[in-house]
């Protein structure tokens, strides 16, 4: 087990290294740098030179990279050029927002998708199944940023039930913080529920075909037991992979949803830092995201055998 983990971590190192080099180079390829943005339409060349030197941007690319990576290895992700805050603090304050929403949405989606998917598989090709499949196709076709906009319009603008922007952490203000989470979670969950239901349905159908299910039925076990004790755990395996993929994807790609709902999450932090050419923040965030991705994949791979004993580590 430990050997497996060690092996996986060793394999992750080159990945993360390549990602950091890619990010480092790419962000500097983009025209414009943070100083130009800060000065805008004023400021003389001397000031520009001074500021550039102060940020270490006057040195060669490899030199800058070495400086950065040597800091990273001791845990220093640098300071934001625009807000002067330590990058690590920025990440640690923005990430929980994204995580809260993504996890909640996935939880809500799973809560609905698992029973729905199982039901659809069990009643395959009957009216219920058709209804469920049709609903999932429709839901999966609705982009979450569109549903987000419409939800804001209905519940925020027209009905004025929920806030249309912003975020207040539950740890700060208690339950009233939930109001800021409802709409984004809903928007994300709507798409996720569809994807998950389809996945679970497909793998449940697979499993139901298998011989040992027929065997269990022949033994006289009730349908409920067949479903819950035998089908679900085995169908869940592939679904777990999908959940892992979704989580990994959402953790990083929530940028659009966070823009729509004006949430201080890590997706938006990243997009805005790219616009602001805030190199340290972009580098730090992407490094963090790559690490998250590797971690999530690792956890999924570790949990997989729990659900499918056929797979050995």
């Amino acid at each position, binding site marked *: 087990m430990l050997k497996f983990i060690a092996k996986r971590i060793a394999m992750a190192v080159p*990945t993360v290294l*390549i990602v950091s080099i890619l990010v480092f180079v790419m962000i500097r390829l983009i025209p414009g740098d943070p100083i130009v943005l800060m000065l805008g339409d004023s400021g003389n060349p001397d000031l520009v030179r001074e500021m550039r030197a102060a940020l270490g941007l006057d040195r060669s690319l490899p030199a800058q990279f070495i400086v950065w990576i040597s800091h990273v290895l001791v845990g220093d992700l640098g300071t934001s050029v625009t807000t002067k805050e330590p990058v690590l603090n920025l990440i640690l304050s923005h990430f929980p927002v994204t995580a809260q929403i993504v996890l909640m949405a996935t939880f809500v989606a799973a809560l609905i998708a698992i029973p729905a998917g199982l039901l659809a598989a069990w009643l395959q090709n009957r009216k219920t199944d058709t209804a469920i499949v049709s609903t999932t196709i429709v839901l999966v076709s609705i*982009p979450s940023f569109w549903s987000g906009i419409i939800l804001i319009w209905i519940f925020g603008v027209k009905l004025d039930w929920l806030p249309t922007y912003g975020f207040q952490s539950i740890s700060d203000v208690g339950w009233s913080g939930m109001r800021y989470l409802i709409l984004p979670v809903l928007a994300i969950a709507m798409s996720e529920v569809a994807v998950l239901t389809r996945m679970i349905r497909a793998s449940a159908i697979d499993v139901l075909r298998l011989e040992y299910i027929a065997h269990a039925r022949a033994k006289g076990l009730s349908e409920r037991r067949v479903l819950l004790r035998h089908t679900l755990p085995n169908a869940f395996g592939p679904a777990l992979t999908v959940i892992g993929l979704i989580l990994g994807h959402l953790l990083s790609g929530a*940028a659009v949803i966070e823009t*729509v709902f004006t949430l201080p999450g890590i997706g938006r932090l990243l997009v805005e830092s790219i616009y602001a050419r805030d190199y340290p923040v972009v580098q730090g965030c992407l490094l963090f995201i790559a690490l998250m991705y590797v971690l999530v994949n690792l956890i999924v791979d570790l949990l997989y055998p729990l659900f499918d004993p056929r797979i050995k580590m």
Partner: protein
Amino acid sequence: MIHLKRTNARIAIVFIGLVLTLAVIGYFYTPYDPVDGDFMEKFQEPSLQHWFGTDNFGRDVLSRIMAGAGVSVAVSLGTVIFAMIAGTSIGVLAGYMGNWTDRIISVLLESLMAFPGLLLALGIMTVIGPSKGGVVLALGLAYTPSVARIARGTVYGLRQRDFVIASQAMGHSGLWTVFRHILPNCVAPLIIFSTSLFGSALLSESALSFLGLGVPPPAPTWGGMLADSRNSMDQAIWLALFPGAMISFSLLGINMLGDAVRDILDPRMQGVAK
């Protein structure tokens, strides 16, 4: 069962056909000029003169939707073609050659996949500047690793099959084996994936436009129209309704088609009688 599949496929084809027709018509004719607006007519509600209303510049929304159809379809198609060609080549290379080639390519693919796709595309767009070709390149690159992964996986499984070993034993070159035996067997999973890829590309193109880095204005794109609509949500919700509906509509057709294709190509979905 077959009846159901056929119905779904039929509906899908109708939807997609409608979108494509819109795109084609839109290329040649739109009721109004999609990029020109009469400032006096701004924020008009949908009416007989403007079926979908007008936007903040007085531009006819229906015309923009029609023109945007062509852009969205073209860009998505381009992305799929790029990713398919690039991804398959890389994936087959890795899967067939194995050993170090495979390992190096796999690590590179892993790194690219760790990169959030949308952000990779965003970064590329910022470097090359907004353009139609740029979006295709950016999104194509973002999706290539997923295609490569599938191709590689399939090829890996095929390598041990009889006809491949036989072909190699007969002395046929690797290239010939690949083209004659391996590629044809990859077609099925890749086709299934390409339908969902098309959908994702359409969605991503909209998302990029939404973030301001898609196909550059004033050429209309559905995602861009959606992004612009946010500011005037309380006065003109139709500016958000129609582009979003069009995106959903197109995705619906594509997804249904994808489902139908998968149902046909994948014998396991024949169903289990209860």
